[in-house]
């Protein structure tokens, strides 16, 4: 199963990068979100390997999954969502400024 997980994460990352490199800014934003998902999955896979039970305190001692990466992912999800929303608004500003949603036509950065 691990091999499939790794391949899936790699594929999602590749898709994210490819979308990020599109000229269409909406696609770039989608790419960013897919990248964030891939990274979160990667983080989850760094947790300890033993343990199938959710990390809840219980009377029956069962091996639980690693709680720390989960807490980190929780924060990461929230921040990446806020960040993406912000990026979207910037993309909107840029498209309003240059009257286009094609990032190749945005030439304000040009020297």
């Amino acid at each position, binding site marked *: *199963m*691990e*091999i*499939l*997980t*790794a*391949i*899936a*994460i*790699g594929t*999602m990352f*590749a*898709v994210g990068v*490819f979308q990020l*490199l*599109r*000229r*269409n800014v*909406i*696609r770039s934003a*989608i790419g960013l*979100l*897919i990248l964030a*998902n891939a990274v*979160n999955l990667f983080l989850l*896979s*760094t947790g*300890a*390997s*033993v*343990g199938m039970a*959710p*990390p*809840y*305190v219980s009377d029956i001692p069962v091996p*639980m*999954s*690693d*709680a*720390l990466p*989960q*807490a980190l*992912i*929780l924060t990461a999800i*929230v*921040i990446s*969502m806020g960040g*993406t*929303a912000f990026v*979207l*608004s*910037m993309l*909107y*500003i840029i*498209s*309003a400024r240059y009257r286009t*949603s*094609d990032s*190749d036509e945005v030439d304000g950065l*040009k020297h």
Partner: protein
Amino acid sequence: MPESALLLPLIIILTGALIAALYGLPWLNRRLNVTQLSWLLALAPFSSFCILVSFLDNLEANLVFSWRLAWLPSIGFNLELYLDSLSALFGLLITLIGILVIIYAGQYFKGDRSAYRFLTYMLLFMGAMLGLVMAGDVLTLFIFWEGTSIVSFLLVAYKYKDEVARRSAFKALLITSAGGIALLVGLLFISYLAGSTTFTVILKSGDILRGSVFYPVMLILVAIGAFTKSAQFPFHIWLPEAMSAPTPASAYLHSATMVKAGIYLMARLNPALGQTEMWFWLLTLVGMATMLAGAYLGLKQNDIKALLAYSTISQLGILMAMIGQDIEIAFKALIIGILAHALYKSALFMVAGIVDHETGTRDLRRLGGLRRSMPYTFAVGALAALSMAGLPPLFGFLAKETLLATAFHPSLPKIVAWIFTLASIVTGALMFTLALMLLWDTFMGEPRDPAVRGHEPPKAMALAPAVPAILSLILGQLPGPKDEAALLANAAQAAHGFKVKVSLALWTGLNIPLVLSGVAVCLGVVLFLYRQRLRELQVRLSPAFTLNTIYNWALSGLDKAAFWATRMQQGKLRRYLFIILAAAIGLILIFRGLPPPLNLSSLSWPTADFRGELVILRFFALFLATVAALVSVWVRSDFTAILAFGASGLGVAGLMVLGAAPDVALVQIVVDMLSLVILVLALTRLPRIQRRRAQEVTFLQRPMGLARDGLIAVASGITVMLFTFSALLSRPRQSVVTPYYAANAKKMLGSKSIVGAIIVDYRVLDTLIEICVFGIAGLGIYTLLRYAARKFGDKGTQVEELPAPTTVELNTMGIGGTRASNFIRVLAYVILPVAMVIAVTDIIYGHDMPGDGFTAGVIISLAIGFWYVVFGYYETRNRLFWLKTSSFVAAGILLAIISGTLGVIIKGSFFANVDFGQMLGLSLPKGFHLSTSLLFELAICLSVVGSVTHMLNTFGHPGEEDRECIDCLRQIAELENKRSQ
């Protein structure tokens, strides 16, 4: 005197600077003029001078004072002051000339109400310079060193409206601060090898330093620092241009004090770094080149100040060469030279300032015959100039004698001694000529320009240069070689490292130096008589290619390089991303190399074991996440791509459930939906034409470009995949921290959910920052779209004054201008309260079950988002009038901080968990804890609702183009209404 009194002079002078700065206040400025202010401020250097004098008695017994304040002890950074005879000599010069210059400046700027700026800089400089010579720690020294460079910049650029002054200031700053960086590195080398940053240790570890393989490196670095500061060849080019500073500053910084900082540093470090072959050759050669170049270039100047600047350079060269020697007489020459030069040169500069002030010119070709109209100034100038010329009975004579004695010293190699002596004689002769030229062409002869007429300056102004000039006369006459010379002898000893005898007797019998001196004077007279022809010759000989050409060439080269580098910025976002990603992958490959062949046997392929159902679910989730992501690339329509992304996110949530992370999965699900809503809203905000055009260009590029993007995507995917492989292979079997949390979460926090406990307690500051970031993102979006967008022609999100909620049905439309059916409208009405109930449950039972304040906030926001979709912007805003977005964010963050503070008040630590229910003995339902955690969850929920509603408000607001459509639809609806009535 206690050692902490060392700090007093600095404090007094910096207080003076503060007072001078306060004088900029209009109500003070009106009451006191600059001259009065200068008298007041002169008290600061005066009292510092007195304090330093009070240390002298002890210093004569060769005592050393040091005082230390631990500043950043963790990195061994101390503020350390240190006073020995060498520091004291410099300190006395700085404060003594400081008094005179401040008084002089008060007269110079008479009536100029903005001159407090000048006095502030001067006192700041004085503080920095005093700190520099009294620093007992190389880092303290460096800080003050840079301070002098910066204030010097401000002073040179004092007349900042003049472009030349600005350029000169820039040049001075560029050269001296570049040297400062070299110095810092050199000093760090020294303190690393010596094992300490304090001078007391460094001065004793000379053998270690000299024996180190890094010796040449640190010597050259430190020397570059000293050479740039003390205007040594070839770095001297900044000093003549620094003359665009007002004359009092030139007199003080660029002759008497700051340019001697490099001399001071080298003299200070001589016991630690000196007495080697390299030291000798470096300092002697550079010093000789500087003294010859300065004297030669000085001859062709017409401006008095420029002439004085070049003669200063020459004198600094002499001093630098003296430090390079390893003989007693050289250090006698050094100390006498420093004192003599500081006295006569500051006097001459101030005289030059008087001449400039009273006649309006400093051009030697126009001046002349001023002895009649300014007899007193003439007398002062003559004293100082004769000292500069090195004529007895003035102090400058002694300086020249000792220089010649050093140059001719038998310990030097034969050929060096010859060259050195010759160079000293030529320099002496040129200096003599310069001094005479200065005196003669200004005061003697007939006025060359009848328009130039002078008169005596005010008394205080004339008094200032008289003091050092008279001192140069008296010091040469003092009887008794022992008492007065003790300070100088001790200072020389501090620089040399061994005992130095200093006597100030002028007449030491007929010896070789005296003869050489005579030769120099004769040569000087000859040069003076033929000065006109010499100067013409010099102008004709002046090379087309000078050091300044190199400087300008380097600067313009830098400009060109910057221009070229920015030309590479072709402004395509995708190109930047491509470079960043390629560089990241390249770096990983270079430094990490290709991973070793993976041991695949330890990894498992899906197997149909007893957990078969889970495997199938997992397989399905992986499939969903990956394939949906791939589909989002493939589909043509952006809207479909967004939906595909949403599906992929749900797949990820499924994986999280199966990875036994229910809390994360819940948040992932709600955030995925929220992202979907926001993406769709953002899409609808874009004008339709743009949207269509952007959709068309998604794949519209050359096949090569597409292949390149694909390649980089695949490469980064493979890199991440390999990363994941190694992470999966090397992850620990057992978590280290989870058992701790599991054992303590319930006991300490009453929380069953470990992830929840981490979020609201163990890593609570993370969460606090997280909600701040989230809140700021919401506010930022609002600001961007409301204000910035409007600037570019879009009306943006104008929050109009909405009418109070009415019972009359509003004829507004949902997203896309379509009116939702009543069924959906009812559903929307129901969903919001339900969402709120779910949210409250989440908050209350978050510590026992999946779900927390964040989930609660997003769930409410999703319901509100549904309203936006169904009712449209106007009606939603109208119905949810109580939803004050910014206040929600603020209230949330405030509540979070309050709940943290309650922990401080009750338990004594920030965000300590306090269970009020338990504390007050309330009987609450099982699982309901009235605690600070609950408050914090509520705070998270509030700020998330506020922030997300901000986002929805701004993205959900109909854009300019859509509004026309909406208005049109609104009219239709009104017509329909009328008809039905």
